[in-house]
Structures are given as C-alpha cells and as structure tokens.
C-alpha cells in the first residue's frame, strides 16, 4: 500500500515547500524540527525574523509525499494555544 501511495499522482498545487502561519514568535529550532520532522526528512526551514514576517515560516521536505502528509495533518495543529495554518507554497514568482 505504501508503494502504491508513492506512485500516486498528487494534485498540481501539492509541492514540497509548505508556508506556515500563526507560529509562536519564540518557537525554537528544536520545536520546529520536532513538529515538522515527524512527517519525514526536512530539507530546510526558513523562519520569519522581521515584524512583517514573524510567526511565519517555510518548511521544505525532501519528499513531496511527506509534505502532503504534513500539510494534511498539521493544518489546525495546536502549538502553545495557537492553531497553525499550513498551506502549500505557491512557486509562481512575482517579479
């Protein structure tokens, strides 16, 4: 069943980078890797540091199927009495 799921076609908006909102401002690297790492190996996390970007992050998984599982499970996940908003990153660049 796992093998079948791996070959399954995913909708076009699904991608390995997730955009996360409503994070606690003081969240640590340990907590971030703990929460998001549960669903699979993480390629990279970028966290917002400015006034506008704080509380948001980009989490990139090594594997697109892990990213989908994480997005499905972590939307609305409660961290320090806040509910996470997890969206797929939209790779269309605005230039």
């Amino acid at each position, binding site marked *: 069943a796992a093998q079948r799921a791996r070959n399954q076609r995913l909708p076009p908006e699904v991608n390995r980078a997730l955009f996360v909102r409503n994070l606690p401002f003081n969240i640590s690297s340990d907590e971030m890797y703990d929460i998001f790492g549960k669903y699979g190996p993480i390629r990279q996390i970028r966290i917002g540091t*400015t006034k506008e*970007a704080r509380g948001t992050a980009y989490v*990139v998984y090594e594997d697109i199927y892990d990213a989908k599982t994480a997005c499905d499970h972590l939307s609305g996940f409660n961290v320090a009495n806040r509910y996470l908003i997890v969206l797929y990153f939209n790779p269309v660049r605005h230039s």
Partner: protein
Amino acid sequence: GNVPLTPEQYQEMRLQREMWERNRPLSDEELDAMLPGEKDGYKILAPPAGYKPVIDPAR
C-alpha cells in the same frame, strides 16, 4: 524491439515520470531562487544539533 505499451501502461509511465520530476532533489541554489530570503525577512533555521534527515532506502 520493444513490446509496445498498452495505453494504461503508457499513462502510468507518464504519471511516474511527472511525479519523479516534481520530487527530484533540490539544490541550495534552487531553494534560494524559489523561497523568500533575507531581504524578505526570512533566515534559514539551523537544524538542532544531531539532526540527520533520514533517507529512506526504499526510494
């Protein structure tokens, strides 16, 4: 010669190729080009000491 694929096999092969393309490893340069960086207020969060992404040998 190759045995021609049935339409179902051909479709299956196309889907696998598409998913492989969407799932190939990303270089740091590709990540930089794709995601907002320091000028947009984001910094790379260093993994905690001892974090090792596990590469699934089944892949």
